[in-house]
């Protein structure tokens, strides 16, 4: 399956600058066990976004009408730490986020973003904070992935770094599995060699799913 290509994105940026926002906070596990991946948006950040009675927390950023469909999220260090749940990315997509800008990310979340066509940009904390100030009233940013440039509301351009392999995959919405299966002969060759080299690494063929049946 190919993803939606990411080229240039323009729009408001919601500032959520707390450190260590974990993927449990982005989407609770019960939502993932009970809902389809395209219906997670209303539950993104629910612990921060809603009061126990279900009403909105008025000063939580994405409850502000100007950030309701913001394509950018500005975040603090270690955003998306914790659980590997890819649903955290789906929940962000569900509220319209296409790009996150933060000083650092949880490693698994970072990889999961690319798997879904979401761009996580790493920039130093001082810059992200300055951007958050500029964007706090709903002013728009532009991110151009081909040129790896962010244009701030005040018109200044900043270059960001992104791994070239990741950039290509995002820009073209590439499908990793299709790409890898082109190397299947190589994979099987590696395996044949490994079976000789490390026979102990290959479990004996076993009855399948045996433990489930008596």
């Amino acid at each position: 399956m190919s993803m939606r290509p990411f080229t240039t994105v323009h729009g408001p940026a919601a500032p959520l600058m707390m450190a260590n926002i974990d993927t449990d906070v982005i989407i609770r596990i019960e939502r993932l066990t009970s809902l389809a991946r395209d219906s997670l948006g209303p539950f993104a950040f629910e612990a921060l976004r809603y009061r126990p009675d279900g009403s909105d927390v008025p000063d939580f950023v994405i409850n502000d009408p100007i950030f309701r469909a913001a394509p950018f999220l500005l975040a603090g260090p270690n955003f998306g730490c914790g659980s590997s749940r890819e649903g955290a990315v789906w929940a962000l997509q569900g509220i319209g986020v296409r790009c996150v800008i933060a000083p650092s990310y949880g490693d698994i979340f970072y990889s999961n973003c690319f798997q879904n066509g979401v761009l996580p940009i790493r920039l130093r904390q001082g810059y992200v904070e300055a951007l958050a100030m500029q964007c706090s009233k709903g002013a728009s940013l532009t991110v151009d992935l081909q040129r790896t440039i962010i244009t701030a509301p005040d018109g200044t351009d900043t270059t960001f770094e992104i791994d070239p392999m990741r950039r290509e995959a995002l820009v073209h919405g590439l499908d990793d599995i299709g790409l890898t299966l082109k190397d299947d002969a190589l994979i099987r060759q590696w395996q044949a060699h490994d079976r000789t080299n490390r026979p102990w690494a290959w479990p004996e063929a076993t009855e399948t799913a045996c433990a489930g049946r008596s």
Partner: protein
Amino acid sequence: MPRSLFDKIWDAHVVRDLGDGWALLHVDRHLLHDLSGPPALAQVAARGLKVHDPELAFATPDHAVSSQPGRHGMTYAGGGKHWSGLQKEAAAAGVRLFDLGRPGQGIVHVMGPELGIVLPGLTVICGDSHTCTNGGVGALAFGVGSSECTHALATQTLRQQKPKTMRINCTGLLAPGVTAKDLALHIIGTLGAAAGTGYAIEYAGAAIEALDVEERLTLCNLTVELGARSGIVAPDERTITWLRGRPLSPQGVAFDTAADDWRTLQSDRDAHFDREEYIDASLVPPTITWGTSPEHALSIVARVPDPAVQQDDKRASFKAALDYMGLQANAPIAGTPINWVFIGSCANSRLSDLRSAADVARGRRVAPGVTAWVVPGSENVKRAAEAEGLDRVFQEAGFAWREPGCSMCVAANGEQVPPGARCVSTSNRNFVGRQGPGARTHLASPAMAAAAAVTGFITDVRELG
């Protein structure tokens, strides 16, 4: 050129160098659980593909199953479709399933090493961030999301960018009463929850060599809470002895051949690491968390931090964490009254963990008003614990003795700490709402959790004698 243990395992698994530090990396073992397993298997089939090597994948239900005594797959109705989905998809793909009530079932990162599915030098993945646990036996193990699960099932490989390497050198020896859990929390508290981001971590030094294998699994389990995807301890004679005779370990002569290979799995003397950290293990106190990130860790004899004296960037988050946790700045953490105790999870649910908690519980009673659960990590752990009478020790002390699974660590199975209740938990995450909406979690070792259960407040286990 001298290489680190990580480099050796990585290099041995490169099917193709993709350039720019990327590699197509072979996956030797793929663990599947009831939440991430079924959709990934279904996705492979939906794309008209087959699981590349079903004999390298192993499945077990743990996340969304009830731990209630006498449970079955539908006891927690919300998890039933995930359990039955795993049965159905595993059978269709020819993947071996260790189902409820059968030897082998358990929390995926408990059963993997326990059965000898996970071995030194293997690459191991799972759609679960705590896959890093498996580094405790010397495997290169890391968690992935569902897209990468699907990729690995369809191709038996992953496209990976080589991380940087960090070695955490733990000098000295842990003091009596101080466990691998305390060491892990102390390291996270010292270095910070993002310290490991972008790194593969190796734990080394005298304190690590002195840990038994189950303690190493605990230490590696918390590596993701340090920000890193993988943590590893070099396999040694303890590892080899521990793995001998496990059901899926190599048997007979094959085991000896394997063990010879495993003995080469060490970082070379002059291996380069991108970052080295040093921790004096002899100074590590019994450690517990006070806040909502695992980095909010402190000594059991310390006081709750005061946001007012923190640096600017931490003041607001400390204040928010104290508010959520319902704690007062500058109050001693010991003596804080608690309502719940949870002993379990892939961090601390192995036989040695249960023995350690039982040693505290033996001859004592759970304090009035406290609900205390013991959830063994696997069916085999449960049976072994029962064989030595640990279930009776716990039950006589007023603890509930339950069925193996993730239970109240992940709270995806109907088992939650109630809103506002305070829980001392042997799990690995104290995030806002992790154990249930409004739940307040303090992470600690099994002995410290048991001490809290029998006193009714956060307690220095060393004072119980």
